[in-house]
C-alpha cells in the first residue's frame, strides 16, 4: 500500500463540485477501479454461496452421498476463503481511497487558506472553512467509497438475477421486477428520514456550540452567577434536540421496518413460487433452498444501493463548500520583482510619515483607527502610496520577507515554544526574548514546552510579550508594531521601551502607540490627526510644543 499524504496534492479543478469530485477520482483512478473490481469479486463470492448450499443439499444431503457432501462442503469453504481474501483486500483498498480523497482535500484546503492570508477572513467565516476539515472530508471520502461499493452491488444484483433467470425464468423475472419495485417503494421513506436527520444534526451542532460556549465562559459564570439561568436554557435546547431525535427515529424506524418487510415479502414470494415449482418437479429441493438464499442475500446489495444516492448527494454538497474556498483569490496580489540597492527610507505619502533606518519612529494618533490605517498601508495589507528605498511597495520583491506589520490580532501557533516563535530562521530569539521581556515566560515553562492552540494557556500580557518576541526574532528590514505593550504592566512596559531602542540598529522600526512610557524612548514621534502627520519631534519636545499631543498621551493629567 502506498504512503499518504502525497507530497504535492496537485492543482484541483474547482470549476464545479462535480468537476472537483471527478478530479479526485482521476488522481486516484487505479485504486478506485481496483476497488470496484474487488467489490464485484467479494459480492459475487457471496452471491454464489446459496447455489453451493443448494447443490450440497441436493447432491450430498438428499442423495445421501458422503463424497458429494464433502466435495460441496469443501467448495463452500473454498468460496469462504475467496470471499474473506477479496473482502479484506477490498476493505483495505476502500480505506485507502477514502483517506486519499480526504487527505488530499485537507491538503488543498490548508494550502489555499495559507495562500489567501488576510483575504480569507474577509470572504468566508472561519467556521465554514474549518468544517471542511471536520465533516466535508468525511462526506467526500464516503462518496469515493460508495462508488466502488455501489458498482459491486449493481453487478451482484445483475449476476443473481441472471443465475435465477437461467435456472428458472419466472423466478428470475420475479427478482428482476421485485428489486426495482422495492427501491421505488423505499425511496419515499428515505426522503423524510434524510430531511429530519439534517435538521437534527443542525440542532445537535447548535447544542454543542451552546455547551462549548458555557464552558468557555465558565469563569465568568462561576464568578458572577447565572448557573441556574444557563442550565435551564441548556436543558430547553437539549430537550429540543431530543424531540428532533425522536422525529428522526420515527422516520428511521419506518425505514428499518420497510427494510425487513419489503425484501422479506420478496423472499416469501420467491419461496412460495419456488416451492410450487419444486412440487411440480421443475426445481430440485436444493434449488429451492438456493433461491431462498439468493433472495435473502439480495438485501445486502439493495441496502448499498439505498446508500448510493444519499452519499453521492452529500459528497456533492461537501465538494461545493471546498470549491467555494478554492475559487477565492488574494485581494492584494504580491508579485513585485524590484530589489532596492540597500536599505532606505520608508515613506507613506498618504500621511506624510517618513521612517529612517536605524531610527525608532513612533506614530501617536489622536484616533487609533488612523494609526491602524498607516500600519496597514506600510505593510501593503491595504493599498496606498508607500515607497521603500524609492521602490513602490507594489513593485518590491519579497515584500512579506522585508516588511512585517505585527498587530495584537496576530495569533500564536501551537507547537514547541521556541519553534513557534522562530519564523524566518534569521534573527536571534534569545535577544528578542530579552527585548520583549519574555525571558521569564520561557524560563518558567522551558523552550520546548508545548504551546496550546492560540497560546491560550498564557495570560493576555504573556501572549503579547511572546508575540512581540516573535516579531523581533523575525528580524525584517522594516518592522511595524501596533500597540505592542497594551496588555503589560507599567514596569514591564518601561523595560520593553528601553530595550526596543537598542534592539534594531540599522533597521526601520515603527511603533504605533499612545503610551507615554514607549513614546518617551522614541528617536522621533510623529503625531497624526485626521490621517496626516501634523507634528514631529521627540516625546518631550512635543509635550512642550503640541498641546493636543500632550492631551492625547497623558489624558489631561
Amino acid at each position, binding site marked *: 500500500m502506498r504512503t499518504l499524504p502525497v507530497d504535492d496534492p496537485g492543482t484541483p479543478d474547482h470549476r464545479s463540485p462535480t468537476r472537483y469530485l471527478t478530479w479526485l477520482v482521476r488522481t486516484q483512478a487505479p485504486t478506485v477501479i481496483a476497488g470496484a473490481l474487488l467489490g464485484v469479486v467479494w459480492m459475487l463470492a457471496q452471491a454464489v454461496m446459496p447455489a453451493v448450499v443448494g447443490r450440497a443439499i441436493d447432491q450430498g444431503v438428499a442423495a445421501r452421498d*458422503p463424497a458429494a457432501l464433502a466435495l460441496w462442503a469443501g467448495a463452500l469453504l473454498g468460496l469462504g476463503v475467496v470471499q474473506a481474501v477479496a473482502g479484506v483486500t477490498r476493505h483495505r483498498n476502500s480505506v485507502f481511497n477514502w483517506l486519499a480523497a480526504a487527505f488530499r482535500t485537507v491538503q488543498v484546503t490548508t494550502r489555499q*487558506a495559507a495562500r489567501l492570508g488576510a483575504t480569507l477572513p474577509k470572504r468566508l467565516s472561519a467556521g465554514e472553512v474549518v468544517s471542511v476539515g471536520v465533516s466535508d472530508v468525511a462526506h467526500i471520502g464516503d462518496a469515493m467509497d460508495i462508488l466502488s461499493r455501489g458498482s459491486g452491488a449493481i453487478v451482484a444484483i445483475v449476476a443473481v438475477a441472471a443465475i435465477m433467470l437461467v435456472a428458472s425464468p419466472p423466478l428470475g423475472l420475479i427478482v428482476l421486477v421485485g428489486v426495482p419495485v422495492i427501491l421505488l417503494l423505499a425511496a419515499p421513506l428515505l426522503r423524510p428520514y434524510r430531511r429530519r436527520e439534517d435538521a437534527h444534526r443542525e440542532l445537535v451542532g447548535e447544542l454543542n456550540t451552546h455547551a462549548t460556549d458555557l464552558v468557555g465562559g465558565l469563569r465568568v459564570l462561576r464568578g458572577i452567577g447565572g448557573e441556574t439561568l444557563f442550565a435551564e436554557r441548556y436543558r430547553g435546547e437539549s430537550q429540543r434536540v431530543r424531540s428532533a431525535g425522536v422525529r428522526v427515529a420515527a422516520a428511521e424506524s419506518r425505514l428499518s421496518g420497510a427494510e425487513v418487510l419489503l425484501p422479506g415479502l420478496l423472499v416469501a414470494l420467491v419461496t412460495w413460487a419456488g416451492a410450487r415449482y419444486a412440487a411440480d418437479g421443475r426445481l430440485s429441493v436444493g434449488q429451492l433452498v438456493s433461491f431462498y438464499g439468493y433472495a435473502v442475500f439480495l438485501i445486502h446489495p439493495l441496502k448499498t444501493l439505498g446508500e448510493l444516492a444519499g452519499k453521492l448527494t452529500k459528497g456533492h454538497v461537501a465538494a461545493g463548500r471546498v470549491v467555494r474556498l478554492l475559487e477565492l483569490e488574494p485581494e492584494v496580489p504580491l508579485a513585485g520583482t524590484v530589489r532596492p540597492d540597500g536599505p532606505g527610507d520608508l515613506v507613506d505619502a498618504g500621511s506624510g510619515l517618513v521612517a529612517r533606518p536605524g531610527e525608532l519612529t513612533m506614530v501617536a494618533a489622536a484616533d487609533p483607527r488612523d494609526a491602524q490605517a498607516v500600519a496597514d498601508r506600510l505593510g501593503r495589507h491595504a493599498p496606498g502610496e508607500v515607497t521603500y528605498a524609492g521602490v513602490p511597495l507594489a513593485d518590491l520583491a519579497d515584500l512579506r520577507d522585508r516588511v512585517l506589520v505585527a498587530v495584537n490580532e496576530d495569533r500564536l501557533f501551537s507547537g514547541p515554544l521556541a519553534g513557534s516563535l522562530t519564523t524566518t530562521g534569521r534573527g536571534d530569539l534569545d535577544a528578542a526574548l530579552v527585548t520583549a521581556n519574555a525571558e521569564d515566560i520561557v524560563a518558567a515553562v522551558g523552550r520546548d514546552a508545548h504551546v496550546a492552540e492560540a497560546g491560550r494557556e498564557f495570560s493576555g500580557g504573556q501572549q503579547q510579550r511572546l508575540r512581540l518576541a516573535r516579531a523581533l526574532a523575525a528580524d525584517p528590514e522594516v518592522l511595524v508594531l501596533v500597540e505592542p505593550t497594551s496588555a503589560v504592566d507599567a514596569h514591564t512596559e518601561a523595560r520593553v521601551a528601553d530595550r526596543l531602542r537598542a534592539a534594531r540598529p540599522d533597521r526601520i522600526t515603527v511603533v504605533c502607540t499612545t503610551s507615554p512610557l514607549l513614546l518617551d524612548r522614541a528617536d522621533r514621534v510623529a503625531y497624526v490627526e485626521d490621517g496626516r502627520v501634523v507634528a514631529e519631534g521627540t516625546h518631550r519636545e512635543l509635550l512642550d510644543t503640541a498641546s493636543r499631543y500632550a492631551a492625547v498621551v497623558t489624558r489631561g493629567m
Partner: protein
Amino acid sequence: MSTARKLPVASAAQVRAYARRLTLRHPRALAGALALHALAAVCGLVAPRLLGELVDGVSRGRAAIDRIGLAIAAFVVAQGVLTWLAHYASARLGERVLADLREEFVDRVLALPLSTVERAGTGDLVSRTSRDVDALATSVRYAVPETLIGAMAVVFTAGALVLTGPLVALPCLVAVPLLWGVMRWYLPRAREGYLRENAAWAEMTDGLAETVHGARTVEAFGLAAARRRRGDADIARTWRAERYTLRLRTVLYPVIEISFVLPVAATLLVGGLLHANGLASLGQVTAATLYVVQINGPIEMLLSWLDELQVGGASLARLLGVGNVPPDRVAGEARPDGERLTARGVHYAYRPGHDVLHGVDLALRPGERLAMVGPSGAGKSTLGRLVAGVDGPRAGTVTVGEGAAVPLVELPLEELRGHVALVTQEHHVFRGALRDNLVMARPGATDEEAAAALAAVDWDGPGLDARVGSGGETLSPAQAQQLALARLVLADPHTLVLDEATSLLDPRAARRLERSLAAVLDGRTVVAIAHRLHTAHDADRVAVVEDGRITELGTHDALLEANGSYAALWASWHGDHQPDRTGR
C-alpha cells in the same frame, strides 16, 4: 502561566454503577422496547423453519405450499411491523437517556469548584463537552441498542437451532473458539488504536483551524510553507494511526468471514451424515443450515459495535469524572456583620514550598478605591483572587466583617458573590440575547435595571434584544469588557476586584469608563489591579506589590513624596527619564 491541570476521570466501577442507574431509570420503557425487539427476533426465525417444512413436504410429495407460503409472508409482515415499533421505542428511550446524560454533565460542569475553574485550562473541559458527548451519543443512539438487539437475536437464533434438532445444532460451535480468540486479540488493541486515531484526527482539524483563524498572521510572517508542513505532518500521523487500526482489521475481518462460512459447511457436512444415518430429516438439516447462515448477521452487528462501546465507556468515564472534583470550600454557619475586607499574614503557593505571597497584610477601607501596581509575576493577580475569595490562602486569613469577621472561603458561593466579585481580563460574551448576558448577574432584573447598568459603562453597542456571542453580532474586545463591568454593576456586590479589567479599551476610553464607573460604584470598595498609571492616579490609595509583598502603600501624593519605585515609574510616565532599574 496558569498550570492547566487535567480534570479527573471516573473509575470503571463508577461508570458501571452510573450505567446501571441510567438503564433502570425508565424501567417500563426499557421492558417495552426489549419485548418488542424479542418478538421481532422470534418472528424472523420462523421463515427458515417453515422452509425446512416445505423441503420435507416437497420431498415427501405432499406439502401445504400455499398455507406455508402465506404463513411466511404473515410472519414477515409481523416482523416488519414489530421491527418498526421496536426501533421507535428503543430510539425514543435512547434519546431520553442521552438528554439525561448531557444535561447532568452540564450540571456537573456548572457546579465545578471556583478555584478549579479559575486554574484549570478550559481545553480539557471543552474536549469533554464536544468530543466525549458526541462519542457517547453514537454509543447511546446506535452501539447500545444494536448490541442488545444483536445479542438477543443471537440467543434466539441459537435457541431456534437447538429446537430444530440438538444434534444438527452442534456443528456450528466450531466457530466459537475462532471468534473468541480473535476478539480477545483484537479488542484491547482496537480501543487504544481508535482512541489514537480520533486524537490524530482532532489534531489535524485543530491544525487546519489554526491556519484558518490565524490566516492574517500566516501571511504577515510568511508562514505558509510552515503551515503546509504542519498540515502534512498531521496527515502523516493520522495515516499512521489509520494504518494501525487497518492492520488490526486486516486480521479480524478474514477470521470473522471464515468463522461465518465454517459452521455452514460443518452443519451441512455433519447434518448430511446425520441424515444419511436417519438421525435428522432433510428439513431439519435445511433449517439448521439456514439458521447458521442467518445468525451471522447479528453476530457481525454485535462484534462491530464492541469497540464503539469501549470508546463510549471511556467517554462516559471522562464525563462523570468532572463530578469527582472535590469541593474547594466547606461553607460554615457564620455570616459577616459588615463589609470590611481584611487580609492578615497571607501566604500562598501554587506549588508546595514555593510561596508567591509572603505574609501580606491589607486592610481595605469600605468605600475606598485601591489601585494595585507592580511588575508582572509579583503576585498582584494572586492577591486579587484571594481578596475575591476565589482561592483560600495557604496561611493567614482573608475575612469579611467588622467584629465577628468570617473567612471568605467559609461562605457559601451565593453569599460570597453578594460581598465581592472578581472581573479579569478574560471576557466572555455568551451566545444569546445581550439581555441574558446581563441579567445572569441578577436573575429577575428588569429591562430598566439592565439598561441602567449598560448606561453606567458608556455602552455604545447593540440593544438588549440583539443576539450576541458566537453566531450573533460580534462585540469588540472593548465592548466585551464593558459588558463584563455592566454585569458587575447589576450584581452590585459591596467590594469589587478588577484585574486589568479595562486593559483592552483604548486608553482614552478606559479612563472615561473608569470615571463613569466610579460614579455608579460610589460607596463600593474597589480594588483595581492595573498597569495604566492613570488608574493609580485616580485611586484613593495605591499599593505597590513587588516579589509577593506590598512594598509601598499610600495615596498617590504620599508615594510620590516617598520617592520609591512608584515615584520612579510615575516620573517615567511623565517623561522624566529614569534609567532601566533592572540594569540591563
